[in-house]
């Protein structure tokens, strides 16, 4: 009964691969192939200098896959540091990002407690590694010897550990720096749009994933 139906709906010749079908398939493949190249910006990560994932984030490799874009970290963030990306970021649309020089992360650790997918792992303040603060010594007025600014030292939540003063000049210790961006936010020197004299480089986002 069922078989009879099937053969009626799909006549015999349609099962064969005709020349027309082959050509059609070839044309489709030819048009789709360069779209992979065109689509490159769709797969480029938005993470970069001062563009950070929230605390406890898994490596950028799997971030877009693991995050379900539920926005709970955005809603729970009391400082509105976390901003969801939109479709211009390609596959990263809807994922959370922190613009460190605008509103840094104050390490309240609320987002890691609500993330349902483990994209933001539930870690402590000290374990957080959103990136590493790097001082641009040629731009920093203290390092240039023009003034005695120590704003980054003053605002650092792990003062004396993450940033200490060496002959009154700030020095970052990568052992303790959480990459929260408070120093970047506080830094009075803007080198270029989005860049200060001390910037957060998300060096931990690039580590590979180990299963």
């Amino acid at each position, binding site marked *: *009964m*069922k078989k009879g139906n099937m053969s009626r709906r799909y006549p015999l010749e349609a099962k064969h691969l005709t020349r027309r079908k082959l050509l059609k398939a070839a044309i489709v493949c030819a048009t789709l192939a360069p779209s992979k190249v065109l689509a490159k910006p769709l*797969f480029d990560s938005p993470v970069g200098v001062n563009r950070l994932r929230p605390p406890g984030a*898994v490596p950028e490799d*799997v971030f*877009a*896959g*693991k*995050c*379900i*874009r*539920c*926005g*709970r970290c*955005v*809603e*729970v963030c*009391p400082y*509105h540091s976390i*901003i*969801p990306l*939109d*479709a*211009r970021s390609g*596959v990263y*649309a*809807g994922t959370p990002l922190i613009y460190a020089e605008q509103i840094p992360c104050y390490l309240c650790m*609320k987002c890691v407690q*609500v993330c*349902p*997918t*483990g*994209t933001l792992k539930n870690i402590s303040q000290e374990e957080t590694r959103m990136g590493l603060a790097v001082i641009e010594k040629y731009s920093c007025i203290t390092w240039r010897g023009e003034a005695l600014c120590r704003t980054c030292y003053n605002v650092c939540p792990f003062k004396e550990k993450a940033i200490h003063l060496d002959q009154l000049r700030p020095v970052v210790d990568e052992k303790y720096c959480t990459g929260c961006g408070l120093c970047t936010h506080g830094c009075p020197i803007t080198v270029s749009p989005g860049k200060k004299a001390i910037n957060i480089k998300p060096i931990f986002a690039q580590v590979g994933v180990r*299963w």
Partner: protein
Amino acid sequence: MVTTNKKGNRSRYSTYRTLVQTAAFLVILLNPFANYYLGVNFVQGWYQSLGIGKLWFVSPLEGLESILVSKLVYLPLLVGMTIPVLLALFLGRVFCGWICPINYLSELLDRLRRFLTRKKIIKDAITLPKYLLWFALIGELVLTMILGAPVFVWLSPPGLVGREIMMAVFFRTLAIEGIIVLMVLTMNLITRRFYCRYMCPLGGLLAFLGSKRKLVVSRIEPECKECGLCKMACPLGLDPLKGESLSNYCWNCGECVDMCPDRTLRFRWRRTPVNGFIPLQVQNGSQPRDASK
């Protein structure tokens, strides 16, 4: 052509459903305001993942995609998926019918349309085979695994409703991808719930989970006059006369139950087939009953 129910039981389930839907929509509508202006974080998220205090809900498809793509199992994610999955196992696609904001908005638009055209029945212009839903689910999962980025999570219409509301409240702007919501709603003009019927992978997954569901709309055959009103009422274009209310696709909204003038359609708790009280499936061989007779 259409008569309202003489026994006065019309819009029984519709009323309940509208109440539930409105409450569910108010959660995602008001919650961003509470988060932003009052700093109350008790509830977060929307229907991709919703946190109410310590209670987490995660949409099954979103969770599945996250696991498939990251190839890692995160236990809290599974725990969050438990309640929605159980709900689908026992009640079927009730999320779609009773909670989903896309369906809610579509129903509001349907009401507006009925009001404007002064017609009680909305005709469906294009009907496609219902099994397209499975292709949507499988295709979406395969594409997700190939791309390494979850596709439905990325641009899921029910999720986008929540995201757009949050964007509007938090950042006073709207994300571009919201255009998908508009497209999905516009497709209702062609065929009611066109997206939900044939294209929604989440609906497909919930329908799959609800294959052996307990709650079904079943028909008392001897009392049925086979007027066919139920088919016209069904937003998914299912025909309870052919037993399609027992199929996977039905989302138990109760529109047909409300519409039935003889009250022959009822919600039933499907028991084990031993007592044979409820016809589980109408045989393929039986001739389809003509609704116009």
